[in-house]
């Protein structure tokens, strides 16, 4: 399921949502991150790392970006266990916890999504610019893009896991 979701989002980002960027480089969303963030926090660290790498590889193949997303995805996959630990509740994650609004709450979701998006965009910015003198100019666009990616992920989240479903299900 996770892999299917990942492939679907890669396809969407590469072929349909590629040009959804209202303010140009200031708002360049990474839709596929949402699939990675839906990995349960209790999952194996190797799974997170492997899926991060696979997501980057798939994006590079689909977008023709020659390794930039692979590096950023691997960095995010490597950091994701630590990010999960950082945002873990005091008593730890329950076995049945899913990384969704209903289970984890809004602050957890927003904080985790923004942190992950920030790590991804900063890495992407570094490997896109490479030269030190170009990095200060690219820092603010990557920050705003991380915020925009968070917004997009939340929108997707609300579309798929709408709060009223919880009510209807309960």
């Amino acid at each position, binding site marked *: 399921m996770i892999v299917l979701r990942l492939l679907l989002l890669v396809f969407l980002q590469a072929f349909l949502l590629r040009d959804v960027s209202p303010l140009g480089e200031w708002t360049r969303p990474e839709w596929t991150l949402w699939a990675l963030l839906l990995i349960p926090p209790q999952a194996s*660290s*190797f799974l997170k*790392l492997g899926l991060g*790498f696979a997501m*980057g590889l798939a994006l*590079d193949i689909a977008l023709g970006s*020659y*390794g*930039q997303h*692979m*590096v950023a*995805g*691997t*960095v995010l*996959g*490597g950091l994701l*266990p630590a990010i999960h630990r950082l945002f873990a509740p005091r008593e730890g994650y329950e076995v049945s916890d899913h990384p969704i609004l209903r289970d984890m709450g809004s602050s957890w979701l927003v904080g985790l999504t923004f942190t992950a998006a920030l790590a991804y965009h900063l890495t992407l910015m570094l*490997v896109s610019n*490479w*030269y030190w003198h170009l990095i200060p100019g690219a820092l603010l666009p990557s920050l705003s893009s991380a915020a925009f990616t968070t917004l997009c992920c939340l929108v997707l989240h609300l579309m798929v896991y709408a709060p009223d479903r919880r009510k209807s299900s309960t």
Partner: protein
Amino acid sequence: MRNLWLLLQRNAFTLAFIALMAVSLSVLLRNDGAARSSWFQQTGSVSYMIDKQRHGWSNYLRLAEQNAELAEENADLRSRLLSMDLAVEWQEDTVRHWTVRSGMLIKGPDGKPRSSSLATPGRDGGIETGMGVLSGGAAFGTVEEIGEAHCRILTLMHTGTSWSCRIGRLGPVASLGWDGVDMGLLQLRDVPRHVQAQRGDTVFSSGYDLRFPPDVIMGTVFDVERQSGADFMSVTVVPAADFTASRHLEFLVHQADSERTALSSTDLRP
């Protein structure tokens, strides 16, 4: 081995992360020109710094060796400088009572073993028998016979005479002569075997034969040959004067020549 395996197991995630990062970066560097050039720039500057540091240490460790090389080079340059100082033309020496009179060569040596040369002036120009003759500041010969307006010169290129010389200003005295074979080469005889001589050394007059003052340039050493078992070595000398193109001559006059001649020819009796 077991400990190594445990260590690998403990750090498996980190190792996996490093491996995937290496794969990703290698793909990126292989395909992204900007990334590759930046990478090479960064690694180039780092390797330059490392190499510079290593070179500095290497130089520091080789200091003694370099010092020895510099000392050797310094000695060689000093030696060359000394040779240049020595190889100067003889100048008029009024302090030691030597003056010159100018003349002109009419007939030079023709390469035959006993050919004479002719020059002007003769007796009317104050020329006397036994005077030394220079050409371009270098030894040319000696006046053998004089006429009213001309004189006959016995040059260095004559097999019937020899000249008192030394290698360098302080070398032992030896006899310079010509074997009549090659007009461009003279032979320095009776040079002791222990004398330090090498190609390019300057040969000066010793002044002992009274025809030339000391330190007149006779030529330069061309070849040194030490034969086994011999007490003396044979030295070949290239004359400093150009016998094929000389024209202007200087006749050396010693102001107390008559006194010197008289004293040198008087037999001392106890």
